[in-house]
């Protein structure tokens, strides 16, 4: 058991390191141009958003339509900090300050609204995120209102994207595989039974919401620092919907599903760019078709596991007795 877990971990680390090095090399050799780098950034940011929303909606069962609101808090916080302090430490502080601010607001918003269930919660979170957007729109002196913030110093590169994306995935999947994570899942499964088994359901809903908001804040900060420009419009209702689409396409309650869906959608969108005027029509048709034929999403609630590799291995090598 212990050996197997260790070798799994080793395989994971090797795969991650290989991905990192290969992409870094391709960037260095200019195979991945600026345009593709922007696509990669979008994919990474969407992974962070989707995995964090999956914690709230997929694992804890709390239907949120307000993820863009928390993303915007991270984006504005980080942008304002790096605009005043355009240095690398300033950027790192900005990202974490953005995340902490988002988590803080997430907690404040979550406490009263998480008593609501199902669609009512969805509508309340939608309302909250609209209010956040309207506040940013009206805080002219700080946020420059509808015109948005320009010339935000760009610090995000592949290295940072890689660190924050893998960090997010690692922390959230670790959390889910802990007793606290199981408590969240039990709330999704049956709130009444969970309470009868000693789980304080409100507490775990708020915890999931705060963690989710924290990482949405990170995603927002990375967004601001990648694209140099933010305005309140970017973080509207449609953005929350975009994230939800990734989560549902990948499968509620599947982290690997969220990652796969974010990557696939990123690639599809890139290809659809060629058909600029009907891009969104194709996208929407695709969405409807996938939902009709695979309503549980690509992965359902299952995870991609490394057993695929060991299966491949056992095909290549003759079977040996288990050590």
């Amino acid at each position: 058991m212990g050996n197997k877990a260790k070798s799994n971990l080793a395989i994971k680390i090797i795969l991650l390191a290989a991905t990192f090095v290969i992409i870094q090399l391709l960037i260095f050799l200019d195979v991945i141009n600026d345009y593709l780098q922007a696509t990669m950034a979008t994919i990474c940011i969407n992974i962070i958003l989707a995995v964090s929303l999956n914690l709230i909606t997929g694992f804890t069962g709390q239907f949120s339509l307000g993820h863009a609101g928390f993303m915007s808090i991270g984006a504005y916080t980080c942008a304002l900090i790096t605009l005043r302090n355009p240095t690398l430490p300033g950027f790192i502080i900005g990202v974490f300050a953005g995340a902490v601010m988002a988590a803080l607001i997430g907690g404040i918003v979550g406490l009263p609204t998480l008593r609501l269930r199902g669609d009512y919660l969805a509508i309340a979170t939608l309302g909250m995120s609209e209010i956040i957007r309207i506040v940013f729109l009206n805080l002219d002196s700080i946020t420059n209102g509808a015109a948005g913030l320009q010339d935000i110093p760009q610090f995000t590169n592949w290295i940072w994207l890689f660190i924050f994306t893998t960090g997010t995935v690692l922390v959230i999947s670790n959390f889910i595989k802990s007793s606290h994570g199981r408590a969240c899942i039990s709330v999704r499964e049956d709130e009444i039974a969970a309470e009868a088994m000693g789980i304080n359901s409100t507490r775990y809903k708020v915890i999931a919401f705060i963690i989710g908001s924290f990482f949405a804040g990170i995603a927002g900060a990375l967004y601001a620092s990648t694209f140099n420009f933010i305005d309140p419009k970017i973080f509207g209702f449609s953005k929350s919907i975009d994230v939800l689409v990734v989560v549902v396409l990948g499968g509620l309650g599947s982290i690997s599903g969220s990652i796969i869906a974010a990557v696939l959608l990123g690639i599809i969108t890139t290809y659809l760019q060629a058909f600029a005027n009907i891009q969104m029509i194709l996208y929407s048709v695709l969405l409807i078709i996938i939902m009709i034929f695979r309503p549980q999403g690509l992965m359902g609630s299952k995870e991609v596991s490394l057993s695929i590799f060991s299966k491949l291995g056992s095909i290549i090598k003759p079977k040996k007795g288990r050590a």
Partner: protein
Amino acid sequence: MEQLFQQAINGISLGSIYALIALGYTMVYGIIKLINFAHSDVYMLGAYIGYVCMTKLKLGFLPSLLISMALCTLIGVLIEKIAYKPLRNATRIAVLITAIGVSLFLEYTTMAIAGANVRTYPPLTGFMNMSFEIGSVSITMMQIIIVSVTIVLMVLLQFIVKKTRIGKAMRAVSLDSDAAELMGINVNTTISFTFALGSALAGAAGIMVGNYYNSINPLMGMLPGLKAFVAAVFGGIGIIPGAMIGGYFIGIVEVLVSGYGNSMYRDGVVFAILILVLIIKPTGLLGKNTREKV
């Protein structure tokens, strides 16, 4: 004081539009528990159909209104049959994503056909262009038309829901669709009929907004749709009179905030009220509190 009257009149006109859209949301939610995101785009299509009727076909307001309502009915039923019916047994979130897909499809198809830019309705002529001045309060003919059409449609709707067979079937399905089916009610037909009713009302709202504000665009449904949904939740989702009350309330609040406060915060106030209502009475103004049986 006169300003207040003026605001109230503007608020009631706007509220009528919200109420008409909210009815579609609330009926569909009541019957299949779906937030039908595509509903606001049916409203947008209603505005475009009205535009075509009144500019290209040079029809008058009333025939355009009827055509718009009829075509929207058709579109609503088609959406239900093509996109939602195959998902009858899927999770609600899957249907919700489908609804979002349909919404995007309608918006961007309209954009591809009619262009992304704003279209303007023809100026109103004849008696449609009249307005009445009472002191410094002015009421336009269009406002009177909006309010009266809305009232007529609401009375008609109440009649259909309360007095007809199909209305009874709607109420039965929304209470318990399995039991309704066992009683011999055709659930699929009833659901289609609900979409038809809601879409007709949205179509009427669309063409009236086109004439009231003059300009339309493919994304015009998004924000009013959202607020109409808020109105439905405010009144108690699934409850028809709730949607009416909610629509008028949201319309009036919005106009008052713009008139007396900061118009930039108009939408913020609407959402803040929504959240307050949800926290104090989660099932809305007219909703009944139910709790899960242990």
